[in-house]
């Protein structure tokens, strides 16, 4: 009977393609929008994951997310270093600064100052030059996307020349020489990222009484990072979060304080509704069209349970095919735009979520159809 169910479904090409199209569209829209949503959220804490060595981030208790900078006094670094269980603690400067380019234009950059001695917190991947080159006089390392785009030199003929090693920038009237290019996680603000040493960064930055943005901490081997965070909080009165905790806090901030969730929520809901409307309606119509045949099968001795299994099988086939096509198209979309500004990330949890949504659509449509078949009087077959 399973073969009959599948042949009934595949035999009606137009309806089958209609149902498939609805489900594919729903699956595509849900997966694609959720992937962009996740991609955007990932960008919000990209800088936290880039600074990979540190277990714990220490900051002012009022900080709400990674770009919410409330500098500390530099003496706080020494207090953190004094906490039992801390293997090392290094300073990190983070701030926005105007960079003056060779052609005279200005561009806001994200300036990162790394511990002069260890350079901990540096970019995850060097494209040209070495991280140690930061120790050269006035040295800065620029992210390759920013160098090729926003920090590129604009010629009078309209062409762009990417920033290269050896080029000079002015950061707050201070000379900075590009000594390397790096690749970093895309940030939410999408400003170019410029790395230098902590002491040089604080020289570049306007004079302030407090300049230490974060203290990066490594726990001693065997020390529980959550427990150490709590100890740092208790001992210093500062906020201390594990890397994941800080990333999560940043995501939570964006979720609660920006329109991102609602915008994407609307798009995803729309995909779900449109998918339900198209696929559900077409599947239900398909069942209605076949009601006479279901009636004939019922009259000939097919149990209601078998008929329901046939409908479920049909729903499962269109559901899995539509889901596969939708996810495939969404993946293709992400792949083709992988080098663009598009934020796109498709973790497995997202695939489970969109599979759940497509299953819901199919189950809803199947339930409607099943309800109709359960109430079906086989005597319908005797009505000419």
């Amino acid at each position, binding site marked *: 009977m399973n073969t*009959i169910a599948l042949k*009934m479904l595949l035999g009606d090409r137009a309806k089958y393609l209609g149902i498939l199209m609805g489900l594919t569209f729903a699956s595509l829209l849900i997966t694609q929008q959720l992937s962009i949503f996740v991609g955007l959220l990932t960008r919000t804490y990209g800088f936290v994951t880039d600074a990979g060595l540190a277990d714990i981030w220490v900051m002012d208790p009022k900080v709400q997310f990674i770009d919410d900078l409330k500098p500390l006094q530099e003496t706080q670094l020494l207090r953190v270093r004094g906490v039992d269980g801390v293997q090392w603690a290094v300073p990190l400067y983070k701030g926005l600064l105007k960079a003056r380019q060779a052609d005279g234009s200005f561009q806001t950059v994200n300036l990162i100052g790394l511990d002069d001695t260890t350079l901990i917190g540096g970019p995850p991947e060097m494209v040209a030059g070495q991280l140690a080159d930061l120790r050269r006089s006035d040295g800065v390392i620029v992210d390759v996307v920013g160098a090729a785009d926003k920090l590129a030199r604009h010629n009078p003929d309209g062409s762009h020349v990417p920033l290269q090693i050896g080029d000079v920038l002015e950061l707050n009237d201070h000379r900075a020489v590009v000594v390397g290019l790096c690749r970093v996680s895309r940030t939410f603000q999408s400003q170019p990222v410029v790395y230098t040493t902590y002491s040089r960064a604080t020289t570049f930055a306007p004079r302030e009484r407090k300049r230490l943005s974060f203290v990066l901490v490594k726990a001693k081997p065997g020390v529980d990072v959550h427990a150490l965070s709590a100890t740092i909080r208790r001992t210093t009165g500062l906020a201390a979060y594990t890397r994941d905790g800080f990333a999560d806090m940043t995501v939570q901030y964006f979720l609660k304080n920006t329109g991102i969730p609602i915008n994407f929520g609307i798009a995803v809901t729309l995909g779900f509704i449109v998918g339900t409307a198209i696929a559900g309606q077409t599947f239900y119509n398909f069942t209605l069209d076949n009601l006479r045949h279901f009636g004939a099968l019922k009259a000939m001795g097919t149990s*209601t349970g078998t008929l329901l299994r046939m409908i479920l099988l049909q729903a499962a086939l269109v559901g899995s095919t539509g889901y596969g096509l939708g996810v495939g198209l969404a993946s293709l979309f992400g792949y083709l735009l992988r080098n663009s500004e598009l934020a796109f990330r498709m973790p497995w949890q997202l695939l489970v979520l969109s599979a759940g949504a497509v299953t819901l659509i199919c189950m809803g449509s199947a339930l409607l159809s099943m309800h109709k078949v359960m109430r079906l009087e086989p005597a319908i077959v005797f009505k000419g």
Partner: protein
Amino acid sequence: MPTRDGLAVQCAALVKSYGAGDSAVMALRGVDLEVRTGELLMLVGPSGCGKTTLISVIAGILDQDAGECLVFTQDFQRMSQHAKTRYRGQTIGFVFQAFNLIPALTAVENVAVPLLINGRNRRVAQARASAMLAQVGLGNRLQALPSQLSGGQQQRVAVARALVHEPRLIVCDEPTSALDAETGQRVMDLLRSVALSQERALVIVTHDAHIFHFADRIAHMNDGRIEQIVHTPETH
């Protein structure tokens, strides 16, 4: 097995109505009817006289309000839904007015359906369906889809489907109404020659006076009652 007294169907004082209250319509008003094995009985009468309701009750796809209907001594009303469906699948073959062949299945697949419903293996079912189609003269159209067959051929496929699982009662609803007179005669020839046997009975609902002569007996219905049952001369 035939019953001791050769009765395939025994209906007594069957009553069936649709709707309730003032809008209730009495479809059967105390119908008594017996059909013997080896017999072809036709139910004739004007539209709305209760023919279709009567064969629906006989076939166990509609429950009567009152009275008794036994099919090979079995009372559908005393069976669970599951047992009723199963008994119907094994005992009764159907030929419908609109053929009701599944458009996406080939002729042989359509004919195999009752065997699959009764739990037969697919290969065995297809082999028997092929043999049955050959018996109704469609051995060369096994893989044809219903849309590729003429009306007469589709009805022959439907006849093969009704017979393939060797049911003891065949119920036909207007089997010739969608066919031209000549094709109708051929289908009736087929039903009489292939379907009818000493162990099997045929009940046919029809309006088509051209095929009355194929019947052993004709039950004339009117307003929910059987007014008379006449024996036809043996012209077949």
